């Protein structure tokens, strides 16, 4: 059985071809991804949703180059992915800040890691710190920040390297509901400003509808077929608008929820 969500075509920013990945757990082999095909357009925002253990984080880690697939390949602008690459940046669920560096040091770290001179990296970093609204906290240490602020630093760090593809692994999952909604607004704004391709893994259906052009619904049962759902709502989106609510109802039905 092949899982054909959407045939990859020429000109896709990201093309996933026949991707399979399984894990060995206690002597048993668990297939997580089976023959997945998917094309993601440049500048598109794609959300991947599904229950825990459905392989959505694995898919993101393969796209990031942190995991090698068992079969198939990922092409970025037509070139096969072999490991991590500087055209991609990841925003992790935990902010993963270096606790000994200030906010400025952490945000400029991404550029400095690839050899950009400190002064230039810091100038870029300051710009993006301002974008996420943390300018007054430039010299604070991560230990002094709240969860939402720390995640903003992680977002600024990823944006500073100006990636073509932004990979987000449940970036707001650890935040409280109010902070999460504020951050969703900010992510929507930043994505539109940066014009990057955004691939977002989330377990929050509302977050997926709010941010994505298309939602990839990972199947609940093993061997099921992932489905793609278009979110053709105007932006900026309104969570309480009738079409938004209808879309949420439809997406919930995909998981047998009401």
């Amino acid at each position, binding site marked *: 059985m092949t899982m054909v969500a959407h045939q990859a075509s020429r000109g896709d920013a990201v093309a996933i071809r026949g991707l399979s990945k399984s894990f060995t757990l206690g002597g048993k082999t668990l297939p997580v991804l089976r023959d997945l095909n998917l094309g993601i357009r440049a500048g598109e925002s794609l959300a991947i949703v599904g229950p825990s253990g459905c392989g959505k984080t694995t898919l993101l880690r393969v796209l*990031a*180059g*942190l995991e090698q697939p068992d079969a198939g390949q990922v092409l970025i602008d037509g070139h096969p992915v072999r490991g*991590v*690459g*500087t055209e*991609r*940046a*990841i925003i*992790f669920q*935990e902010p*993963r800040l*270096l*606790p*000994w*560096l200030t906010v400025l040091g952490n945000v400029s*770290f*991404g550029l*400095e*890691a*690839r050899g950009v001179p400190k002064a230039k990296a810091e100038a870029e970093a300051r710009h993006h710190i301002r974008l996420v609204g943390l300018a007054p906290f430039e010299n604070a*240490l*991560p*230990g*002094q920040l709240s969860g939402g602020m720390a995640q903003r630093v992680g977002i600024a*760090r990823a944006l500073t*390297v100006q990636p073509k593809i932004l990979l987000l692994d449940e970036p707001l999952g650890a935040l409280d509901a109010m902070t999460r909604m504020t951050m969703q607004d900010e992510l929507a704004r930043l994505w539109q400003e940066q014009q990057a391709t955004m691939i977002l893994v989330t377990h929050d259906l509302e977050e997926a509808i709010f941010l994505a052009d298309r939602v990839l619904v990972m199947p609940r049962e093993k061997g099921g077929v992932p489905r793609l759902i278009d979110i053709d709502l105007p932006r900026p989106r309104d969570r309480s608008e009738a079409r938004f609510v209808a879309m949420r109802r439809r997406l919930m039905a995909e998981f047998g929820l009401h």
Partner: protein
Amino acid sequence: MTLHSVDTPAKGRPFPVAAVSRRAAVGAQGFLSRYGLLIAFLLLWQASSTRGWVNPAVFPPLDTIMAALWKGLASGALLDDIAISLQRSGLAFGAAVVIGIPLGLFMGQIAAVERALEPILQLFRQTSALALYPVFILLLGLGEASKVFVIFWATLFPILLATIGGVKQVDRRLVEMARTFGASRLTVFRRVVLPASVPAIFVGLRLSATTALLLLIAAEMIGANKGVGFQVMNAQYNFQIPLMFGAIFLLAALGLVANAVLVLLQHRLCRWAEATR
């Protein structure tokens, strides 16, 4: 609007004298709660000795001890002892730092090396340096070399093991983060692994500094004719009990100073670790 009256400051300022004395009282209370027992201990010592509750020949009064200590320092004799002791422990500690930290950083990074060396390290560490001192004397003679080496041996392992432990417990997720931004192995080491290990390394350094002084005394008690440890033994042989206690207090002071210096350095380098805790 009765609430306003609550917030209005009282007309007459409170007597500054009262405020100052209150602050002084709080300060004194803090001082007493911290050093009260120590002061009581010293007072008890002084009283027991002067009133003959204990044999003053064995436990001389503190003022006699301080006088003997001052005499030794003023004549320069004890200063020479301090200098030679600091030279021995300083050389050994310095060598342990210079060898232990880089070796630990290397071993902690490479699992195969660490696995191969770990059993022999454990064996060496569990073998008391004092038990090996006769071996070192056989190998290096009864001079400075064997003394410095036995201290070096004892101080190397806390530093080495703490450094290995520090490197191994670096958050792998931070390393992964750095890799995704295109950091090379060297950059990951320099910008992530090394700074993350510093707090653990300091634990080893402080442990080693204490060990250095401990071993210094033992080394100087055997076949030395100078040094603070030698003075303790020598004064006891000659029944100069006040001088003996003076030298013991001097050793305690050296230990306190060494620890204070390291704590200061630690605060400087690992302020972030305190912020996270």
